[in-house]
């Protein structure tokens, strides 16, 4: 692991490349690098604390998807010569890379990627070469998996140092799957999660999960924003409980958990799948301090009237104290809060449509 510096790095993936913002730990004045990786949709970026690099998942409409890596906080990039690729026998071809997630501190060189069509890929050399997860590629139910509106995408990978063999993933519109053996085998974890568009409201799989989030301090408590609800599991996904309560809508995409308070959970509700705009024409982040029992609107510093949309990877929590929350919109607005969403400050309003926001101390 590299020595910790005094910087915070905010990585913003857009439809026109990526931008990297850095600030000191006070997180007041952000310095922008970019655009970099021009010509690519950047669906996911991640800071790898093990070697101080930034990983980015790129998808080009012309030249296909790939992975890029920067060792100087986004100034220069090296694009993989052997990005994720399905075996020919599968008949599949990688169309987009939705998520990139470094392995735990002890898993040297391990990086995971979430792929469309849905599959988990693993690299054991820091992202240079990749292999499809065979348990998922050959899963007995795969032929019955159906795509969500964004495609049949594996968009979320949740790892925890406290359970080193556990991998949680989410696929639209297949649901949540969990492996407890490092990815050898997979089980669906969708009990009591509703599928609103099916006559069978509670099938084993087919759920349209939009995002999962945890705090490593409470590794079995998982929060889920779903197409048809907001849920919490207290047993690593074995059972889910509806926690919509006083939220203005059950629909939305991103989800984040506070770095210091594992029961504090952030969402960005939209009216519904019929109208993907903020309730009442007023965008706000909503947070619960008690794991979803009740919710509070966090809108101080945000426009009174706004039709922002935040995509599934467009909101994130940092690891500072007090916890910082960041969101980016499809209109290219980037907002930050240094105090758990109590006050928002605009970082930029001139970016391309934002697909992903991630953050890390460097």
């Amino acid at each position: 692991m590299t020595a910790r510096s005094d910087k915070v790095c905010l990585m913003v993936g857009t439809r026109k490349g990526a931008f990297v913002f850095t600030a000191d730990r006070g997180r007041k004045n952000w310095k922008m690098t970019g655009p970099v990786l021009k010509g690519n949709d950047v669906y996911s970026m991640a800071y790898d604390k093990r070697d101080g690099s930034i990983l980015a998942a790129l998808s080009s409409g012309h030249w296909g998807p790939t992975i890029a890596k920067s060792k100087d906080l986004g100034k220069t990039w090296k694009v993989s010569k052997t990005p994720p690729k399905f075996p020919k026998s599968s008949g599949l071809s990688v169309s987009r890379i939705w998520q990139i997630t470094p392995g735990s501190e002890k898993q040297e060189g391990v990086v995971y990627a979430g792929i469309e069509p849905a599959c988990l890929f693993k690299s054991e050399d820091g992202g240079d070469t990749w292999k499809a997860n065979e348990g998922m590629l050959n899963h007995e139910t795969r032929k019955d998996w159906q795509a969500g509106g964004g495609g049949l995408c594996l968009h979320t990978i949740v790892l925890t140092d406290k359970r080193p063999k556990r991998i949680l993933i989410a696929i639209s519109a297949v649901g949540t799957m969990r492996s407890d053996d490092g990815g050898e085998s997979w089980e669906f974890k969708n009990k009591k999660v509703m599928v609103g568009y099916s006559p069978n409201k509670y099938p084993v799989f087919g759920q349209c999960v939009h995002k999962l989030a945890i705090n490593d301090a409470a590794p079995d408590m998982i929060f889920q924003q779903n197409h048809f609800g907001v849920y919490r599991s207290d047993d690593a996904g074995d059972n889910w409980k509806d926690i919509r309560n006083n939220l203005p809508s059950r629909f939305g995409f991103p989800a984040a958990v506070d770095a210091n308070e594992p029961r504090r959970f952030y969402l960005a509700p939209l009216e519904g799948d019929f109208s993907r705009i903020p309730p009442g024409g007023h965008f706000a982040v909503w947070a619960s301090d008690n794991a979803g029992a009740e919710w509070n609107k966090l809108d101080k510093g945000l426009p009174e009237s706004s039709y922002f949309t935040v995509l599934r990877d467009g909101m994130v929590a940092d690891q500072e104290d007090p916890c910082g929350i960041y969101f980016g919109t499809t209109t290219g607005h980037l907002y930050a809060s240094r105090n758990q969403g109590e006050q928002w400050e605009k970082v930029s309003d001139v970016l391309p449509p934002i697909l992903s926001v991630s953050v890390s101390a460097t």
Partner: protein
Amino acid sequence: MIHVQLSGQLRDWTRGLSRVEVDGASDILSAVRKLDATFPGLGQRIVDDQDKIREHVNVFVNLENSRELGMEKAKLRDGDTVHILPAVSGG
């Protein structure tokens, strides 16, 4: 000898070269494989995991679009010029 003309973004893979030569390629796919052997990573930008020319990539043999010639199986002859270009996708 096949002459291959590459569009701007692909030159990132060829150290800036816009025109390269490949020897002994009988069809487009074998030319792509030879290009990839010389410039690792370039091949996957042109063809997908199933070795099909990507949907929004156009490959011309001399002045004919490979879509009319069998796509990646389009035959090449010594002296041919292959152009690899992004399709005009969108409005």
